[in-house]
């Protein structure tokens, strides 16, 4: 298997308190994580609240740099499926969709080219051209998911997002995620629901006390 991203003994610590005047104390979120995310595979990350799952996603997405160990990106684009990132309530759905795409790393041209797809996928009707502050929570979630899913990185990181919108849209969202899961795209899903991960993933990484161990699923 070809690794897309490799982590080698990655450790992350956060400063809990302390400043120039007082000595700092640290919280070790991840102590030594070694793992590969391979091309085309779906990896689940399981752990209890506060076990460091989301921190690990931030490391994988390149937002956080490890304090120890190394992370190697073998030339792939990585993106966290971030819903409603940077939405401005006074702008309409259309404008927020452009901005959202650009925040996910697309050029303006690409983001604009995605608009028809987003409009169709979000299925908001006339509301697509109304300010986002007039949206219901469900509509907001639909737009957010539609924008996020149209940016197609090589490695997609998902942090518990499958509860979006109403029943119909949730089905549609799940279907799209499943398509990604079974496609050549690598997908990393963070969850604290083991059955859910077993359904979706080739392999589950369990984070406990800042350490990782792997569990194969059938």
């Amino acid at each position, binding site marked *: 298997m070809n690794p897309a991203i490799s982590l080698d003994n990655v450790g992350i610590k*956060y*400063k*809990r308190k302390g400043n120039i005047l007082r000595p700092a104390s640290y919280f070790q979120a991840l102590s030594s994580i070694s793992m590969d995310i391979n091309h085309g595979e779906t990896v689940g990350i399981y752990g209890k609240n506060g076990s460091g799952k989301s921190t690990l996603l*931030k490391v994988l*997405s*390149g*937002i*956080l*740099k490890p304090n120890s160990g190394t992370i190697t990106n073998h030339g*792939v*684009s*990585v*993106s*966290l499926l*971030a819903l409603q*990132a*940077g939405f*401005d*309530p*006074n*702008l309409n759905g259309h*404008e927020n969709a*452009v*901005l959202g795409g*650009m*925040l*996910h*790393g*697309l*050029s*303006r041209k*690409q983001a604009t*080219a995605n608009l028809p*797809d987003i409009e169709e996928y979000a299925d908001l009707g006339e509301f697509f051209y109304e*300010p986002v502050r007039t949206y219901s929570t469900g509509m907001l979630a639909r737009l957010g998911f539609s924008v996020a899913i149209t*940016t*197609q*990185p*090589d490695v997609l990181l998902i942090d518990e997002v499958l509860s979006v919108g109403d029943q119909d849209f949730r*089905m549609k969202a*799940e*279907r*799209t995620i*499943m*398509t990604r*899961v*079974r*496609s050549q795209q690598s997908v990393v899903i963070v969850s604290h629901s083991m*059955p859910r991960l*077993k*359904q*979706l993933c080739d392999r589950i990484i369990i984070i406990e006390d800042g350490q990782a161990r792997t569990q194969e699923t059938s």
Partner: protein
Amino acid sequence: MGFLYRVLRTIFADMEPDAPVQSPDLSGLLPPEEAFEWPRHASRHHNWEQAAARWQVLRHVYPDHPACWFQGVNALTQSAKYDKAEDLLARAREQFPNHPSFFAEAGFLDMQRGDLDSAQESLTKARTHLPKNFMTWVWSAQLAEQMGDYDAALVYACRATECAPERAGLFIEHANLTMRAERYEEAIEQWELINDRFPGLDAAYKGLAQAQRMLDGADEAQPESTKQDAPGLHAHPIRLIELIWTKAIFNLHSEVRRNYLSFGWWVLEPLMHLAVYQIVFGVLLFRGGPGFLLFLMVGVVSWMWTMKCISGSSGSISGGQNLMFLVGVPPIVFPSVCLLQATIKQIPVFLLLIGFVLFNGSSPGLHWFALIPILIVHALLNIALSLAIAAVTPMVRDLQQIIPTGLTLLMFMSGIFYDYETFDQKWHALFLLNPVAFILKCYRDVFIGGTTPDMAALAGRGAICAVACVLFLMIYKRLRYFYPRVVME
């Protein structure tokens, strides 16, 4: 079950298997349906040989129950003991001459042996005589598929689900058959139905994904044009600039839509400041005089640009926490957006100032060309100051508290509503060390004095600001990973 088995073995210990049956004393035995659970349990685990053996035992206990015979045939067929199955089937037919299960089991046996024509004949009869048995339909579907008739197979599979709507397996088999028939759109509907009816089945999720993928593959749903090259803002400076520009424009749109007077505020706000200073300093404190309004206006307009850049940028990195975390937007974006926004808003105000100057100030001439370098140096100064303050505030949050006071101090020290030349000469050089004061002096030289400002001094300050800007850009690039942490911690 083990206990029952031992009891039955004891009762029939001296009997040959399948010897002619004498009716035993049935009192004290389990009711048939309960006893049949015993072989069916083995069947459910696909332990067909064990199931066949158990049915064989039960045939001695419940010889009048067709299930013991026909399901025994089925277990033998499943375990590929076709001859034994055929033999038992013949004896079952003797025992129950008109029983409809015969056709179904015969059809299944023939199908397993590869005799498709006979199987077809038997299963046709089974469908007529035994339409409520879902296995009839399952086997009919299997046979039709083997014969390549997917239309019929799908109809039969569907009938099977109607006969036993509580069995998820039948629905899954139906959907799988639809997939094999390459009718992916129908398959998607079926998988969704299964997801609805029997939530949480692995097979349904995986089937759904598979169907979706096959459909996408079949449609060539991903033409080259929609394939996007690697996203990642850090690697694309042009995208970064594009993002800053778009975000600034959209922020302005958003701001404008919040107010009734929309764009009007861009001009009204500086005019209101101007009015306040004019009343306080010009009227109440008698500092005014001919030309004071123009003097004040030049000062207020240019000061407000700097002030808005700094106050907007100061908290911008902390404010962008979410975006840094969620989508990894580089920290430089946040102060840059604020700078650009303040600059765009400055344009109409500046045009208004020029209009006012044309009526009341120096007449235009070659010295007005000095405005170009002045504006450039002023912009560089704003960028350097804003980037510096935006960079420091996340590290020392307390700074955020003193910025308004600091800005007020800077305003008073820059000679907006007084002329520094009224001070003693020895303070002049010191006063002009304040770059904001120096820039204000340059504007006033052009607009009021009608002269070209000290270009050498302007160039010197411009160079310092430019170096500072480059330095800050490098610092921001270097501290890219630092800010998300600092903001969080």
